[in-house]
């Protein structure tokens, strides 16, 4: 301590000059528009370059796990295609047997492609803060937009909240501001609010599900088809624990996440092609619920 004091005393003049200079320099960066934007743009691109290098290195190290995840995903997709094709076959068979014309659109046959996928690499990701975000190496020039869903090989990862030309920031599922209503596959329920309690990076809580609902440990929790952001039936996780001992009318459910947020590397950003249409419909109903009826249904 004495040595430090002596050193400061000895170098007090250059230290004072340095402090005054940096104070002035800080004023320049804060209040002069050009210098301010130059400094922030340069520092952001510098930090992103470092993130990119780090991501390349960790990506190489995690190659084995990544391959395994992609293999599992391929398997899942193959199964999904097989299931879908078997449905088409079934419909064809019914139509052939009965001679009736199928007036319902057959899934797969006249399949409307509603989603666009853009693959990206996660270059920075946090899991230990109350509000976690991840950065990806794709931006607006690659077609990334705000409010795009982000899926990983194992399941839901988050939502894009901000984009620049070449990079984007996503709000992770491990974020106190993230909320979504899931679909519980076994019971067919589309209710409750899924959110992160900030405690464990492997699980989230599912609230506001009536205690009469028959939820079991191991039930698959998927994205709901009512969501305008996420494609339907994408895995979020599975029920880990159901607490019925509380006095509330709602169950306390803990959901184990499908995605391991400590190891996310490759993700897919998904945009709904008809999101604008859906949003404008929703807004028109919210702003003027009777606009399409010309007042005929008024009581």
């Amino acid at each position, binding site marked *: 301590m004495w040595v430090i004091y002596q050193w400061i005393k000895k170098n007090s003049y250059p230290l004072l000059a340095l402090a005054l200079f940096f104070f*002035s320099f800080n004023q*320049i960066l804060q*209040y002069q528009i050009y210098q301010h934007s130059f400094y922030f743009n340069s520092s952001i691109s510098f930090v992103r370059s470092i993130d990119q290098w780090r991501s390349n290195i960790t990506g190489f190290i995690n190659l084995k796990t990544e391959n395994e995840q992609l293999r599992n995903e391929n398997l899942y997709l193959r199964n999904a295609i097989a299931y879908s094709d078997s449905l088409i076959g079934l419909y064809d068979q019914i139509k052939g047997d009965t001679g009736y014309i199928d007036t319902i659109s057959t899934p797969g046959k006249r399949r409307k492609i509603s989603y666009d996928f853009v693959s990206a690499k996660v270059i920075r990701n946090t899991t230990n803060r109350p509000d976690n975000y991840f950065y990806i190496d794709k931006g607006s020039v690659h077609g990334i937009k705000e409010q795009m869903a982000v899926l990983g090989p194992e399941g839901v990862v988050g939502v894009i909240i901000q984009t620049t030309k070449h990079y984007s920031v996503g709000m992770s599922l491990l974020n106190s501001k993230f909320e979504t209503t899931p679909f519980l596959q076994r019971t067919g329920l589309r209710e409750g609010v899924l959110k992160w309690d900030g405690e464990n990076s492997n699980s989230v809580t599912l609230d506001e599900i009536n205690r009469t609902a028959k939820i079991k440990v191991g039930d698959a929790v998927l994205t709901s088809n009512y969501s305008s952001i996420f494609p339907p039936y994408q895995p979020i996780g599975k029920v880990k624990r159901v607490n019925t001992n509380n006095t509330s009318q709602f169950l306390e459910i803990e959901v184990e996440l499908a995605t391991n947020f400590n190891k996310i590397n490759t993700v897919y950003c998904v945009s709904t092609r008809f999101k604008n249409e859906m949003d404008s419909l929703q807004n028109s109903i919210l702003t003027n619920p009777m606009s399409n009826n010309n007042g005929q249904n008024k009581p």
Partner: protein
Amino acid sequence: MIETIKHIFIAIILGLLQSFLIQEVPMGFYLKPMPYLMLFFVLPLDLNRYAILISAFIFGTLIDLSSGSFGTHSAATVAMVFIKNYVDRAFIDFDSLKLQGESYIGVESKGWLFFFYYTISLIFIHHLIFFGLDFFEIRSFIRIFSTSLISSLGTFSLVLLFKSLFKK
């Protein structure tokens, strides 16, 4: 005491001249003189160096406030005064200067050539830092350098002029 009041008076005059006259008169693309630096060439060399440094910061900040160039003048002035302190220690014999009855470097005490190199190099350092921070671009280095050089000559001329005026 009289000396202090005299220096404060010089500082006010130079500050007003810089803010309301020199800055407002368009002198061309490369010529932006800053004669307020004269203050630091007429301050007694035996004055407390910390006091000079802090006064440089305050004076620079006041010029910044009047010209809307937040921090640029103060950063450059602090840097120049800091370097000047080491230059003074390296090249000037304080005792012989006192014997000559001078308190700062002038043509009379050290000769024309020394005075020219001493003043212009310190002014150039100030201008280089000032325009460097103002342009804030490496690729504009030639423009920064040429503006600093031409403005330094302009500042030096005005310093000479004001020095002779204040002496009278």
